[in-house]
């Protein structure tokens, strides 16, 4: 009785394994046909792009995905596979990149979650002869075709210059910093500090880690106001923290405090709209690089030489240009 059950179970396990293996093989095969094709390609052929995104769940990256889908459509010979979301998990991103290599995509785009863990997978892709575009965050290898990214130091500096302009007679600035362990946070801070050094009358009277989060911005601003700190301007490392802090200041009747953020997302709940609604004085566009990535991919497909490092500028967004910038980057209706 028990032995027959065991035999049955063993047979079932074997059958399942065979089924799974077949399914896997079939899956790989179909994708390979779709992607590879083999041999050298001419400019007229279809080029398949695989994109491994660090984390879809950040509004900035969601925007980047949409923009990439939109701009790739400008080049009829480019075909973007469904974007792979690593969900902030290095191991998952490595396996996604390896899957793209297995599928023999023609061009690989990677937005690394963290530099070091993703580097070996990028090197594998490179060794397999696949051109790699690194988007937004760096990797610890030179084996890629092009790096496209914003310049957080420059953005911090621009924000600092705006503060120098806003407070010519000096004043008190409070800084809401992003997660302290992250690179953009450091650079947005350093650039800012360098710029406000121009005017010794400008003092950073408060600084706290807001972890990029809107409710933290509200809570910390409330604590600063409770401390009785005299604040003229709040510099937040992203728009949600600035908006959260502004809400707290408004509630306390401190309407004269100015707010500066970074991101400038063209979504209804984003920083550009907040500037238009006068909740923030300035925000700085952190470029997604999607437009440049699509163009770079097209250049690679056409066999042209591409820049190894493409550093993107920012756009200072004030009430004057907010509407135009919003219209340019608004992806609603442009992609499905």
């Amino acid at each position, binding site marked *: 009785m028990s032995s027959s059950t065991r035999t049955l179970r063993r047979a079932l396990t074997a059958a399942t394994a065979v089924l799974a293996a077949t399914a896997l093989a079939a899956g790989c095969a179909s994708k390979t046909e779709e992607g590879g094709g083999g041999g050298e390609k001419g400019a007229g052929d279809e080029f398949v792009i695989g994109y491994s995104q660090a984390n*879809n*769940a*950040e*509004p900035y*990256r*969601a*925007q980047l995905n949409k923009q990439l889908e939109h701009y790739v459509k400008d080049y009829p010979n480019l075909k973007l596979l469904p974007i792979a979301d690593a969900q902030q998990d290095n191991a998952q991103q490595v396996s996604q990149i390896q899957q793209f290599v297995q599928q023999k995509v023609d061009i690989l785009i990677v937005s690394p979650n963290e530099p070091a863990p993703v580097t070996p997978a990028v090197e594998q892709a490179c060794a397999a002869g696949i051109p790699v575009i690194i988007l937004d965050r760096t990797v610890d290898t030179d084996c890629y075709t092009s790096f496209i990214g914003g310049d957080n130091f420059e953005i911090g500096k621009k924000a600092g210059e705006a503060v120098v302009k806003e407070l010519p007679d000096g004043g008190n600035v409070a800084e809401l910093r992003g997660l*302290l362990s992250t690179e953009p946070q450091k650079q947005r801070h350093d650039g800012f500090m360098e710029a406000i050094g121009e005017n010794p009358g400008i003092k950073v009277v*408060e600084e*706290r*880690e807001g972890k990029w*989060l*809107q*409710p933290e911005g*509200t*809570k*910390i601003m*409330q*604590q600063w106001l*409770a*401390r*009785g700190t005299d604040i003229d301007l709040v510099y937040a490392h992203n728009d*949600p923290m600035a*908006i*959260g802090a502004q*809400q*707290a200041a*408004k*509630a*306390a009747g401190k309407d004269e405090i100015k707010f500066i953020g970074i991101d400038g997302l063209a*979504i*209804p*709940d*984003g920083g550009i*709209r907040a500037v238009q609604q006068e909740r923030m004085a300035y925000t700085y566009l952190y470029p997604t690089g999607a437009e440049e990535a699509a163009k770079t991919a097209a250049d690679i497909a056409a066999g042209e030489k591409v820049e190894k490092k493409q550093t993107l500028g920012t756009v200072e967004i004030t009430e004057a240009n907010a509407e135009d910038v919003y219209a340019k980057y608004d992806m609603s209706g442009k992609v499905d």
Partner: protein
Amino acid sequence: MTKTQPDPAPAGGEGPDGTHGPGGPGGPDGTGAVSRARRILPVLGSLQAYIGLILIVAIGVITKGDVFLNQTNLTNAVGAFATRGILAVGVTLVILAAGIDLSVGSLMGFASMSAAIMVAHHDMPVWLIVPACMLIGAGFGLANGIGTAWLKIQSFVMTLAMMSIARGLDRKMSDNESVGTLVAGPDGELTENSESFQKLGTPDNNVLEGILGPDGIYFPVLAFLMVCVVFHLLLSRTTFGRHIYAVGGNPTAARLSGINVTFVIIAVFTLSGMLAGFAGPIDAAYSVSADPQAGYTYELDAIAAAVIGGASLAGGKGTIIGTFVGALILTLLDNVLGLNAVDDNWQLVIKGSIVVLAVVLQRPDLLQSIKNGIDRLRGGRSRTGPGRTPDKAQVPGPASAPASKETPR
């Protein structure tokens, strides 16, 4: 509905208040330091369960005085934690029934996004949004309960899976974009429904003006207090409440004494989900926006509040008052450190250390241990001093609790 009979099952030997009394007063022997200590100990004992909170409030008052101890600051501090406090009440119910609910943060996030979409895209009134979100949360909670009670999936796994499912649906529904709750109508002014939605927790919006004082009360604070009162009464005054303790204390004994264990487990998960659904709109109003990542790691804060408040992860032990105190400890500690502009890196270290200290100081057997230590120092005395009275429950929880048994070491 009032408690007239002893527990239907030997629920781990705990009364519904779930707390052990502190060491009783010592006998009238001894002189000098020891007798003074003996006189002080019982006084301390009645406050001991709150000692962590008292400590933090004392630090706040000493370092910041009126800046800390004023209505605006305390309202802000409790308001910032209110959603997590509400989650903590739900988690307490589940923990009492010897389960765990890791999904509450994600469920709150889903409800927050649902609420924002309802007000921003469908112009729904707030009186409809709140019950709808509670229903949504309860639905997820029901699924947690069914998975745990019927499919016999461990609640850790079931709710971990639900945490992922709800977050995925939240992100899908929002397309990974945050949704603002400040909605301007065609005339450029806020729509009526958006205006009233802010009452749920946007800073500077109070409710019940003129009824609860001239300025009214900040809704997140009111909501948290209401939830605590309702669920405290549910646990301490109803048969269902006693059944939760019984199931958590000893499910087999509970079943044998005729309690529908399956129903109780499904009910606590459903209630926990419902509370997470209730917290959602408050979160969306507080941030004037629903973030697809809202509520991320909130389940840990909620569980921490319950456990700091004396709930045992083994089940059957804990109170809503304890959880309330635990939530206050967490948020006031954050507030005191913030008001003192303590370095962010040190804040992490200090928060962790003070939480450990608070839990140790609140331990019901702490005073007894100290007393035994003193006795030992005096030498020659028996470890259990003469004339010791049985422990009495003197600390949070319904005062009608029966004397609990000797604290296990």
